[in-house]
């Protein structure tokens, strides 16, 4: 337990130092090594550039894709480019008045609005924070930017509903199949009838 937390602390410290060094300019040959009490190597500091490579989206291995049914679009709304192709994107954050008025954002609305997720230049795709654009059928990657643990659980079939065969092919559902992305709280439903109380029905 102790060793783990120590390790974690050291790693965080190491990371911060590395980032700090990177920001501070000329790359120092910071190749410090940290050992625990028993002399085992815990952390080896790397050069900041090496660390930053992790965020290089271009050279990253492509994400594994998952078999999902078509995304749950409202009727006749997709492709978005049918309407949006000729429109100039208005990056001004504002309340929509003419179109899409049925959408009430109830999803950390203080922190974001439409064009944080919908790609302004091509509305038929979504946009990750990194700038990478993804099709709607991979929208789980967009959701996973904040809900990382959920995404990880979803991939192994623990979050959400996965159908198919327990020892064969499986079908996934997109997050949006169960959660309205603009108002993701799961909707309440009518329960099926309770069982008959013992003694109520005598035959």
């Amino acid at each position: 337990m102790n060793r783990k937390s120590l390790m974690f602390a050291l790693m965080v410290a190491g990371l911060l130092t590395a980032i700090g060094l990177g920001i501070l300019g000329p790359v120092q040959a910071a190749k410090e090594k940290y050992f625990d009490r028993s002399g085992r190597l815990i952390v080896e500091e790397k050069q900041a550039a090496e660390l930053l490579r992790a965020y290089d989206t271009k050279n990253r291995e492509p994400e594994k894709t998952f078999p999902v049914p078509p995304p749950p679009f409202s009727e006749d709304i997709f492709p978005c480019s049918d309407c949006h192709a000729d429109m100039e994107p208005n990056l001004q954050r504002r309340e929509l008045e003419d179109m899409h008025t049925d959408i009430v954002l109830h999803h950390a609305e203080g922190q974001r609005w439409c064009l944080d997720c919908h790609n302004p230049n091509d509305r038929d795709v979504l946009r990750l924070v990194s700038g990478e654009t993804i099709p709607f059928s991979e929208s789980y990657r967009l959701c996973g930017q904040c809900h990382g643990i959920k995404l990880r659980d979803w991939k192994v079939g623990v979050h959400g509903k996965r159908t198919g065969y327990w020892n064969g092919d499986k079908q996934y559902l997109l997050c949006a199949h169960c959660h309205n992305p603009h108002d993701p709280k799961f909707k309440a439903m009518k329960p099926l009838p309770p069982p008959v109380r013992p003694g109520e029905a005598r035959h």
Partner: protein
Amino acid sequence: MKNIWSFFMGTLVLVSKGSKAYYIWVGALLTIAGFGVMGYLHQLNSGLAVTAMKDQVSWGFYISNFTFLVGVAAAAVLLVIPAYIYHWKPIKEIAVLGELLAISAICMCLMFVTVDIGRPDRFWHLIPKVGLLNFPQSLLAWDVVVLNLYLTLNLVIAVYILYETYYKRVPNKSFTTPLLLLSIPAAIAIHTVTAFLYNGLGARPFWNASILAPRFLASAFCAGPAFMIILFLLIRKYTKFKIQDAAIHKVAELIAYAMAVNLFLFGAEVFKEYYTGSVHLAPLKYLLQGLHGYSALVPWIWTALIFNMSAFLIFLIPETRKNHVTLVLGCLMVFTGVYIEKGMGLVVPGFVPDVLHEIYEYTPTGIEIIISMGIWATGLFILTMLLRVAIPILNGDFHVAADGVSSHIGDQMFFIGKRQKEREKEKAESLE
């Protein structure tokens, strides 16, 4: 073989003879048993849905009666211990009667189990080698084995002694004594196994208490002898059989000790549950106080406790123990008290609240009561028949005739009125 046949035929003739009272008694028992059979046919036809049992309370009145009667059967041993170990004569004379009671009680037990199971047509699955008896894993399999062994043991002992006496021979002690000694652990075993049947279930905290088997034995040694005292008094009053006061008073004294232990053990259980106050208190609370407004058993259990405590005092004080009015009252109270405490009072709280803490208040339906009464009547009928044969044999009124083949029946009446009995007494005195 010929001897056995003529003995058997003789007993058939014997049981067909009797006074008017005997016929009325037997007729009444058979009528009730007949209603019971009709009720059972109805149950067979519609399934156990005609009972008030549900998934929540899956054992009820039948198994309650079963549990109580195993105790009655086991208590026959109480007479065997002083009779054969200490050679105490007054009880030795009547010990056979205890065994006959045990036989009838076991028959009732087997009937109660039969009416409780959903597929009596598959009884053969329980027969070792033919079916697949889950022995030694299942305590119910143990119960099947020990109950049948105990029944056989008692039948062998009682029939052998009566048979030998009928043919005017002295029963061979080197045969009877080991069997009689064996019947003591066997009696304790049947009741311990029955207690373990409940005791071993971790799912049911009310039963999952190690005090259960001792409690079973203690309460059995109250109810069984109480029944026997009443039986003795009736036999003494209405048949020619003589039973010494000393024997009855001794049995009554033993009830006092057994009841003291029974009340103590019950108190120990109550203390443990209430003082600990864990979630396992719920069933006991349901029994004694009621739970969430459900309290069907409360008046019953308090009646039982009051009966048991009063009876304890009656049997403890020599004056009331020896007074036959208070003695009979005490016996009735013990019998009823234990019947409630260890019948419904033991079985039902095992299921209330159920394992998911649901409360379903169980009260037996009319059908369950009719079938149960039918079984009691059948059991009493068996007992009457056994006594009808045994008492004349023990009195010397039923034995092989001088020709060595046919039987001599000296007692045509069996049940006789008080006045008749006095007349017989005078006759006997004048002869002296």
